[in-house]
């Protein structure tokens, strides 16, 4: 049970986003991929669930090469992966409970009563008990993320992917989402990939942290190794120093540098 990303390359037009990215995540492990906005973290995550196809390299989940899977094989693989979107991506036209049960409707053996019970159980697991009849528009940002997570775990996935799970949340809600991610790992035993630019959150939840820089896995290590790294790019990102990160010199202004 693992996610293996090998030499992943992806371009959009002339712009090369991923230039040979490698990563591995196993059972009961949270691997965080960090980097500034726009470096391709979400693009990377979308390859894992087959929403994007690589130009070169491969993503292997549970022994299946995602880029070569189609039709029912890809659908089966996707049922083993829970994806928590950056802005939750809840279906506006449905209630929260219907959102959570959406993936189960297509599966064999799931009666409406069973789906309802499972949706309620998942909502309770993320702290949203009794909110199943609400509409997504009636939820706060943190509640929407929780509802998105409830939908992702409804099918008891073996893998969980989080796209910027704490972006736009206040510090208290961020901490509760972080704790939720740790609980999901411990209770479900899932292999987890988290892409984030929130280093506080990454240090709190990750077993291993990979810095995505210039389309590659620039640095991979446990949180302590990342904290003590002497690499200027790593230090620049962790300390939020643009001069170090972009190589224009510590503390120097960064006019004209990409952000």
């Amino acid at each position, binding site marked *: 049970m693992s996610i293996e990303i090998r030499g992943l390359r992806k371009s959009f037009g002339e712009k090369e986003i991923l230039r040979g990215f490698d990563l591995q995540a196993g059972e009961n492990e949270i691997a965080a991929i960090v980097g500034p906005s726009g470096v391709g973290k979400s693009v990377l995550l979308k390859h894992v669930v087959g929403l994007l196809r690589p130009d070169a390299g491969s993503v292997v989940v549970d022994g299946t090469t995602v880029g070569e899977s189609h039709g029912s094989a890809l659908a089966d693989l*996707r*049922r083993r992966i829970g994806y928590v*979107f*950056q802005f939750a*991506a809840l279906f506006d036209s449905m209630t929260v409970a219907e959102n959570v049960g959406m993936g189960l409707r297509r599966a064999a053996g799931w009666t409406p009563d069973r789906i309802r019970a499972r949706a309620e159980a998942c909502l309770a697991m993320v702290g949203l008990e009794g909110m199943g009849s609400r509409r997504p528009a009636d939820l706060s940002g943190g509640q929407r993320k929780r509802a998105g997570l409830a*939908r992702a775990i409804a099918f008891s996935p073996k893998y969980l992917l989080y796209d910027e799970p704490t972006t736009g949340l206040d510090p208290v809600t961020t901490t509760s989402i972080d704790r939720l991610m740790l609980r999901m790992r411990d209770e479900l035993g899932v292999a987890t990939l988290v892409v984030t630019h929130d280093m506080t959150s990454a240090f709190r939840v990750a077993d291993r942290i990979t810095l995505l820089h210039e389309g590659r896995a620039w640095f991979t290590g446990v949180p302590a190794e990342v904290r003590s790294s002497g690499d200027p790019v790593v230090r620049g990102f962790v300390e939020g120093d643009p001069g170090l990160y972009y190589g224009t010199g510590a503390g120097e202004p960064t006019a004209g540098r990409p952000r």
Partner: protein
Amino acid sequence: MRPTATPHRTATVGRGLFGGLAAVGRGVSGGLAGVGRASRLGVAAGRSLGKVGMWAPQLSPQMARVGVASVPIALFIATFTGIVMSLQASYTLTGTIPLYFVGVLVSKTMILELGPVLTGLTLAGRVGANISAELGTMRVTEQVDALETLAYDPVAYLVAPRVLAGTIMFPVVALLAVTVGIASGWVAALQLLDMSSAEFVKGLRLFFEPWDVWFCVIKSVSFGFVVTSVGCFCGLSTRGGAEGVGRSTTRAVVASSMIILFLDAVWAAVLL
């Protein structure tokens, strides 16, 4: 005195020419890419019809949204079109042609042209814009991606039921509009013109051909298919937030209206 070409002027003209050619090239290439993407979506939609379990539960709600909810606006337009047709026909024919030809003109025009085309254009605005805005918003808020991660085929779940609903319901709405248009023309002839019911009915039946109704149905089926397909294509091709949703909605309405008018001419040339 003729101005002489200087090197600077020649270079400017050359740049302008190449710039223009490049713009045309980009336009043609963009258009061809759009046709390619639309064709791919068409093929995927055709294939998705096999996934009955995915689109069938959505069909009835979509038929209600596309068809039933469009009936009031379609009938409103048909009512006034029928009245205006009746009055204008009377104005045109008075003193030269027997007045019962008002019935001929109203019925023929409503069945062959105004019923299906006005309904098509109205629904291009109402239904096409609605579909494009809804799917566009779903696209930019990653709801379409979310469907895929939940093992749904977005084409089977979103596109197939909408296109089927449009193809089935447009002719129903158009036939209702034709009926109401003729009825309102009839009432206008009785109330506002010096015509009897018998005269109007005589005109109504004079050149009536059952084929005319089939012609109306064929046109409406094609318009329903076009409006919903273009709406789905523009919606799912949306990029870039609220502005992108607005752009794709406008594109859906303009493109489907143009295709409706083009098809109108094609059907007239081919079927009449």
